[in-house]
């Protein structure tokens, strides 16, 4: 029931009701205090208006009990706001494991979206209702920010070889909603927006296959690139090559030279392609040239998706830098630095 002048955008994701409830809570507390202060000031202003030119006020210097009261009560309320806000935020930053992954690339001044089957969209994003969606965000140039007011979520899209920011949400209402770039990114920042279309799952599936003719499967594209870029000459599947086998890599714990371990998520794979020397797998030499600047973002995504697809391949034991214990069977949580 949106009136002519709505006070809030449509509520169309799992987060929207929580954020709105928070908003109502904090607004109520603030209106209470602002109204109290205002009424007190106006009342005193008239009540104690100077009647005689040389009158002075009653010399009251303070009251420790009052001071204590207006330190402690606001502190408790502030703590409540902090805690509630933290609960919503932690939920937002902890991606569930059963997400539908969609890549979103920002560049001055457009958004390129790649659906799981490789279907590409420009300034449009189609998602099914009721499904947990994870957006994997990369930037080709400056910092952007993907913001969907109806979902009450946003996340910066940051350039760099070692970053994929991710965000997740579950659309709850079919419809078309604005998305915006909300991090200032240059001349046409204001035009860098588009529409999210939330569809019923069956509609979405039909849409995906119906218009999928143009989209090449990213895994297939990545496999081709893997051969073309000669990755395959070192990264042998059986683990006997000069570079570690990538079978079973995605989601696993990788033991690095120096003893640290890292979870092989999208950001790790991206970094290892673009700046391989940043993290060297234990027992391997730093031989691989950096591919930063050699690959387009789409090619990088395709390679990443291909490498991710190898997770179901048998993991070689000998010579592998991958720690024997795999991470849990699901995709890695996206809580990353």
């Amino acid at each position, binding site marked *: 029931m949106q009136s002519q002048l709505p006070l*809030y*955008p449509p509520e169309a994701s799992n987060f929207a009701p929580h954020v709105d409830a928070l908003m109502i809570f904090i607004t109520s507390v603030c209106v209470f205090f602002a109204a109290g202060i205002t009424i007190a000031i106006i009342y005193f202003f008239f009540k*104690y208006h100077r009647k005689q030119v040389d009158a002075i006020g009653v010399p009251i210097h*303070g009251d420790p009990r009052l*001071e204590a009261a207006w*330190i402690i009560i606001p502190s408790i309320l502030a703590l409540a706001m902090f805690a509630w806000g933290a609960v919503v935020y932690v939920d937002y930053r902890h991606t569930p494991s059963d997400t539908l992954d969609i890549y979103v690339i920002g560049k001055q001044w457009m958004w390129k979206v790649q659906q799981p089957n490789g279907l590409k969209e420009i300034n449009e994003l189609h998602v099914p209702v009721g499904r947990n969606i994870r957006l994997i965000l990369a930037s080709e140039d*400056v910092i952007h920010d993907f913001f969907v007011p109806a979902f009450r979520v946003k996340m910066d899209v940051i350039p760099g070889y070692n970053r994929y920011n991710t965000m997740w949400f579950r659309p709850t209402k079919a419809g078309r909603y604005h998305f915006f770039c909300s991090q200032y990114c240059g001349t046409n920042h*204001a035009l860098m927006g588009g529409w999210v279309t939330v569809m019923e799952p069956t509609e979405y599936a039909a849409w995906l296959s119906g218009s999928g003719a143009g989209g090449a499967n990213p895994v297939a594209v990545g496999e081709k690139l893997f051969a073309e870029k000669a990755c395959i000459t070192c990264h042998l599947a059986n683990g006997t090559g000069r570079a570690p086998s990538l079978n079973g890599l995605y989601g696993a714990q990788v033991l690095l030279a120096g003893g640290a371990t890292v979870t092989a998520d999208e950001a790790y794979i991206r970094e290892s392609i673009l700046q391989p020397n940043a993290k060297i797998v234990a027992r391997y030499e730093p031989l691989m040239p950096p591919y930063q600047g050699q690959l387009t973002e789409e090619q990088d995504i395709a390679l990443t998706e291909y490498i991710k697809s190898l997770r179901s391949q048998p993991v070689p034991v000998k010579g592998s830098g991958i720690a024997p214990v795999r991470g849990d069977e699901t995709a890695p949580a996206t809580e990353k630095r």
Partner: protein
Amino acid sequence: MSTAPLVPEHELPDTHYLNATYGSGRSIRAWLLTTDHKRIALLYLASVTVFFFIGGIFATMIRIHLLTPGGALVSPETYNKLFTMHGVAMIFFFLIPSIPAILGNFLIPIMIGAKDLAFPKINLLSWYIYLIGGCFVLYSFGTGGLDTGWTFYTPLSSIYSNSAVTPAVIGIFINGFSSILTGLNFIVTIHTMRAPGMTWFRLPLFVWAHYATSLVMILGTPVVAITLLLAGLERMFHLGFFNPSMGGDPILFQHLFWFYSHPAVYIMILPAMGVVSEIIPTFARKPIFGYSFIAASSIAIAVIGFFVWAHHMFVTGESTYSALAFSFLSYLVAIPSAIKVFNWTATLYKGSISWDPPMIYALGFIGLFTIGGLTGLFLACLGLDIHVHDTYFVVAHFHYIMVGGAVMGYVGGLHFWWPKITGRLYPKALSRFAAIVLFIGFNLTFFPQFILGYLGMPRRYHSYPPEFQVLNVLSTAGASILAVGYLLPMFYLFWSMRYGKVAGPNPWPATGLEWKTDSPPPTENFHVTPVVDWEPYDYRNRPDLGLAAGGPLAPAHGDD
């Protein structure tokens, strides 16, 4: 209301700092080479007002442009330059120097009973550094402009922008030293030059606020100066501090930038809080409620303010633990501000409240600052920030703090001390009217922006979807009222310099040391070094003020 004069007609003193004949007297040269803190304050007043006008013209163009969804006035490039240059001019060259360098400079030595600041020549140097920095920035504005946003986020500023970024960052770098030297001067002066009897807890709260401000200036400004210099070096020499394609980290820039630029908000608001802490007890004619709590809360704000910077980065993908810590600390810094608001309000209780213009401005400040401060609670809230971050909600919030708070405090302070600075009074009714116009215009301009923000309108948009138009038009309408509220004081204050009624040493009357000397004060501030034997804001034991010693309804005695 009663307006019978408490004191007979006054005359200006024969010699005072404005007409003194030391050095080469009243020539331009004598002004440009002066080391008198009061004259330097007026030099700042002139130059800061120029930047306020420049920033104000940009603001006007922004609001006109946003009348229509497609943008009514300028191209996207120009719009981006307008809001960037508005921010740079207003923050670095108006808001940060306004109260400290004008009112602080003028008043701190007099308030503590000193003849000048500790380093008078460095004080003059600060002004010249400000001018040089200002010239670089104006050069940037004039030769291609600046389109990075006042936040200069990399890699947009260091690599992608085609505007005149380099001279702008050099200008802000240079200007930083002006701020640092002013802070240094204040701290040394407050420590070493207090008159006999002026103990720390007899200091006016204005001085406490400036002490806290000076700490932030000294500890924070070097960081932003070097950060912007790094961005400039990256731009000029293609070094890779922040450039991700060279292994740099664009987020590092944000950490360094906000390490200063969040505390910088307190550089803007703390002095305004100091002004209000002077005005309220004066026009309620009673001691301020909770003096030590207000003094301590200034220091607390300055200290905690250094540990909240990453709340500007909740949606950069920073670690959840970091976000939790910074959210918590951001709530913590809200408490000292709340303490001040409660104490100011309590000071009004059983006061003898006059409706003089400075009081109207100060009460307006409390109203606007309260809204600005409370809306900070929305932004400090992690779950809510992911929605309102980088929207007009933020724009509204910080304008309530910086314009509703800092500028209202600045204008209120000018009204309070104008009789001291110029020796003359301005038309009271007109200035009360101006204060009310300012208050209404301000709310009409910025309150709709809270709603715009929650609806999802991102900031820094030269065009916007049509459903946001009504609120934008409302905001622009408010801005035109706001402009009247700013122009009126400029006219009548200027007018009063020549035609205003002579004020006398203590027209309100107020209790501070600055009111014990002539208006305008002599060059050496006091004819005899004062000795302080009274508590701050004490009216009861001050027969020299000529007021009744009873309560608010005490009968007048011998009133002629």
